[in-house]
């Protein structure tokens, strides 16, 4: 298994992929966190979909990671794209046959790839968290947000909880990407269908009937990263999100282990 992880890591660490993905994560994290503080008094809102997040919220023990938690869904979409591309490209490049000749244990190969991509995702999350907390600290004075509670024991617990929730969410998004990559065997199809569903179709369905969002996979995973939302409880999101991911992964793993490799 460790050999599979190490081999996959050789592919993931190439500068264009590694630095490009980290760069995209930093861009979205930085932008979201900067808007949160610099537009704190804006009437158009300072958070997603024009929501207003005031000083009373940012001054809580969880305030240091509020920006980071808000960007969890976007980090998840980045992970979905990376996991989907890394999985589906093995079919389009024809490299899967080489991998299976060197590692015929298909489930082992799949889990090894997943572990390597999880490590990649965790690095992405940690870098994004550090940058988001750093920007929050740097802009708190200017936005007149008190940080007294941020680095207390409660504050550290909040940081830990948020890191855990965002990690679960991002890795779940990644697994969905991997499942799509395995099922569709084309990076473009896997990424476009995944992103289209999460960013457009779920939002359209939610606009037509908000109750739909309580059952949509993307909404559950975004809610996990935020530790719950006014509309969806954390436990509901965690149970439903985990179920979606587990069922999807199971179907993909069974298909992958039995399907002929004919390209």
């Amino acid at each position: 298994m460790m050999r599979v992880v190490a081999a996959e890591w050789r592919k993931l660490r190439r500068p264009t992929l590694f630095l490009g993905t980290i760069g995209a994560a930093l861009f979205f994290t930085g932008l979201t966190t900067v808007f949160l503080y610099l537009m704190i008094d804006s009437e158009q809102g300072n958070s997603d979909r024009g929501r207003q997040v005031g000083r009373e919220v940012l001054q809580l023990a969880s305030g240091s990671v509020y920006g980071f938690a808000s960007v969890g869904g976007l980090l998840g979409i980045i992970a979905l794209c990376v996991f989907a591309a890394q999985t589906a490209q093995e079919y389009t490049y024809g490299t899967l046959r080489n991998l299976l000749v060197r590692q015929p244990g298909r489930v082992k190969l799949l889990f090894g790839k997943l572990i390597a991509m999880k490590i990649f995702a965790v690095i992405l999350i940690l870098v994004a968290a550090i940058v988001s907390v750093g920007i929050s600290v740097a802009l708190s004075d200017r936005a007149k947000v008190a940080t007294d509670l941020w680095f207390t024991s409660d504050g550290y617990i909040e940081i830990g909880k948020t890191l855990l929730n965002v990690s679960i969410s991002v890795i779940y998004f990644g697994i969905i990407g991997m499942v799509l990559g395995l099922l569709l065997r084309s990076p473009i199809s896997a990424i476009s269908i995944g992103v289209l569903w999460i960013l457009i179709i779920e939002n359209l369905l939610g606009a037509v009937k908000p109750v739909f969002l309580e059952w949509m996979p993307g909404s559950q995973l975004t809610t996990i990263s935020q530790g719950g939302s006014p509309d969806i409880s954390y436990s509901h999101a965690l149970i439903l999100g985990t179920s979606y991911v587990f069922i999807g992964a199971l179907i993909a793993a069974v298909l992958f282990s039995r399907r002929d490799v004919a390209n």
Partner: protein
Amino acid sequence: MTSLAISVKDLSKKYDSGYAVSHANFEVPLGTICGFVGPNGAGKTTTIRMLLGLITPTGGTGEVLQQSITEPEKYLSQVGAMIEGPAFYPALTGEENLRVLATLGGFPLERVSQLIETVGLAGRGGSKYKTYSLGMKQRLGIAAALLPEPKILILDEPTNGLDPEGIQEVRDLLKKLASQGTTVFVSSHLLSELEIISEYIVMLRKGEVVFSGTMNELLHRQQPFIAVKTENPEDLQKIIDIAHAAGHDASIRSEVAYIEADRDWAGILNKQAFEAGILLTQLSPQLPNLEETFFEMTGGQS
């Protein structure tokens, strides 16, 4: 200890559209070079994929190094393969691509630079795969197949895209590997190349094995012939008449008479031609080559 590298019995792969491979039976002895030939769509690649555990057979059995092909993890660490041309990650360098596979297979990374040199890619190993020519990609594919120091090397069209010098190098490499005890199972459209290097041949047509055995056995199964040239081309018809009178089929192509007869009859023909006042400039008993035999047996194209 068995002397067989590969053995298949009634091996089949059936799709909705019909059999890709139908009840194939053949054996490949250890330490030989075995050519695997057949027209496009004959089932060569499907057979190779079944041997490598990439495709599940729908019938029959197969063994590689005495292990069932249903348990490829038991033998693949001793098998090197290049299937349907080279396939690598375009954004990685040639060396990095090999390192991915070496890491995955648990092979020493030092082998990567050695193999890059062995296949003639020294100086280009650090270039991205996407910048490689077809010949260079092919060489990298062969290097990847050699990573495990294989007991069996399975190569699908290894000389595709190589220039004559490259083909010669691959031929020499395969001969060298075979002399060191490696079994080489190689499919190629270049039948003349296979004829030079192969001791064994497995021939497929429409998913069925039409021949498996030694190259000698194959070529001796075909009707030998005698090629005859005369000083005066007009005398060729007289040669044909002599052949027909003796009960042999004969025809003239490109000012050469081809007579279907054993080499022993060449002496008789020579005597009769002399008595008829015909001066022969060529009288050569021959066996059909692999290409002629292939066309005869498959009725198709290589």
